[in-house]
């Protein structure tokens, strides 16, 4: 059985190459599937959380080619050729050592239930890659869309500023 090449998509998730056949048959990935569902249901990467599933809460944020993006509002079929980083991709793959940002969130207990935390860390990671020592206002703008019902935001500000190598 052979497929036309155009029916396949290929993209990297946390450095691993993933290939999917696109279509409606069993085992194929329907074009209507979102990246959030692909990550969670097909690849088992459940660190990415789906809160509202409508692009309003930013829980599902992942990096697509380094840009913080809503995986619930992204069609997997449109990720062909992209490089996706989820929360599972942040620790050092060889040693398992946490990213300094993850460690800072733990040190500052910058969460309660933790549901919004993966999205917050991913967006903060992109911010720190772009701006090495952001101001408090810059952190607030970058994380402005991330909802936390436990009101962890104050600790998140501390954790991100700490991870940026600064004590406030």
């Amino acid at each position, binding site marked *: 059985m052979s497929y036309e090449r155009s029916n396949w998509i290929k993209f990297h998730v946390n450095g691993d190459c993933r290939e999917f056949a*696109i279509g*409606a048959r069993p085992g194929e990935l*329907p*074009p*209507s*599937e*979102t990246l959030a569902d692909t990550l969670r249901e097909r690849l088992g990467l459940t660190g990415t959380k789906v809160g509202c*599933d*409508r*692009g*309003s809460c*930013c829980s599902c*944020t992942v990096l697509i080619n380094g*840009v*913080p*993006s*809503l995986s619930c*509002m*992204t*069609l997997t*079929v*449109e990720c062909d050729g992209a490089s996706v980083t989820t929360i599972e991709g942040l620790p050092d793959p060889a040693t398992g050592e946490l990213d300094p940002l993850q460690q800072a969130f733990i040190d500052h207990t910058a969460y309660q239930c933790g549901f919004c935390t993966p999205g917050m860390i991913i*967006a903060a990671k992109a911010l720190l890659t772009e701006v090495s020592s952001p101001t408090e206002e810059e952190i607030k*703008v*970058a994380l*402005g*869309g991330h909802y936390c019902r436990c009101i962890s935001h104050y600790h998140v500000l501390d954790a991100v500023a700490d991870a940026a190598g600064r004590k406030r």
Partner: protein
Amino acid sequence: MKYFSHQNVTSAKEGVSCAKDCNGKASFIAGGTDLLGILKDNLLPTYPEKLINLKTIEALAGVENLDGVVRIGALTKLSALERDLEITRNFPALASAAASVATPEIRNAATLGGNLCQDTRCWYYRYPNHMGGRMDCPRKGSGPCHAVLGDNRYHSVVDGKRCFAPCPSDTAVALAALGATVEVLGIEGAKNLPIEEIYSPMGTVLKAEEILTHIDIPAPPPESIQGFKKFTVRKPIDFAIVSIAAKVNITNGIVDGANIFFGAVAPQPYRDEAVESALIGEKFDTKSIAKAAGQALVKAKPLSMNAYKIDIARTLTVELLESFII
């Protein structure tokens, strides 16, 4: 989401002919931040069989300066727009409108063309189908407008007809004040329209197979001042309750030209000629601004719960125009 097929196109022309072949059973997808929400909630009586992906049209993303006119490709991301040097330098009203939209994550995906063409935010229209059934209304082809007798606090105060949902786009308001036109490609070819003319009370006037390809903004006169301001309850994520964009020309302290547009008060960016004429010919100071602001939305016919928008519009007028006084 229910199943749909998906096709990438590499030119706007290919997109138009592809949509034509689908006989209205296809939708265009650009950033997708509005469309996927509509499809997930199954808002509309129709559901597309195919999505035509416009993001693969590389020629339609970017800003270029063509001899006094700045041409923005409709697929330019809002996040690119708010950072673009040409835009931040010459069109700060547009840059600030783009930066005021939703959240950084949404602006990383959302395009300018999509922001202009997005569907209404009326909460009756947006009522999800899976929670007891969608609410039909004139905009969906049948049924009454639920906002007229219902909770209409966020609806239009002026120019509504059959549908009272306001235009939700922030960038449209800034672009209207800057005198922008849009280019729309259809089966018969391309046409140019002033930005506010793509809106009607029932939504955009674009046909199912038409694509908004470019936005052209004439260079502003060097002595003009422009700005955009938006009132929301929360700073990120919220749509405007009222917004204003203004471009004012001042010569020797006297106003000789004014473009004042309000957003989220009408189905289109609302040109307020009463404020404009109150400003023109006057000395530009706090006194004339206060007098002109008092004229804001004088022609409004508010619904039962949204007269407060007029007060907000007047306050925004004062705040924005006073920020222009050097």
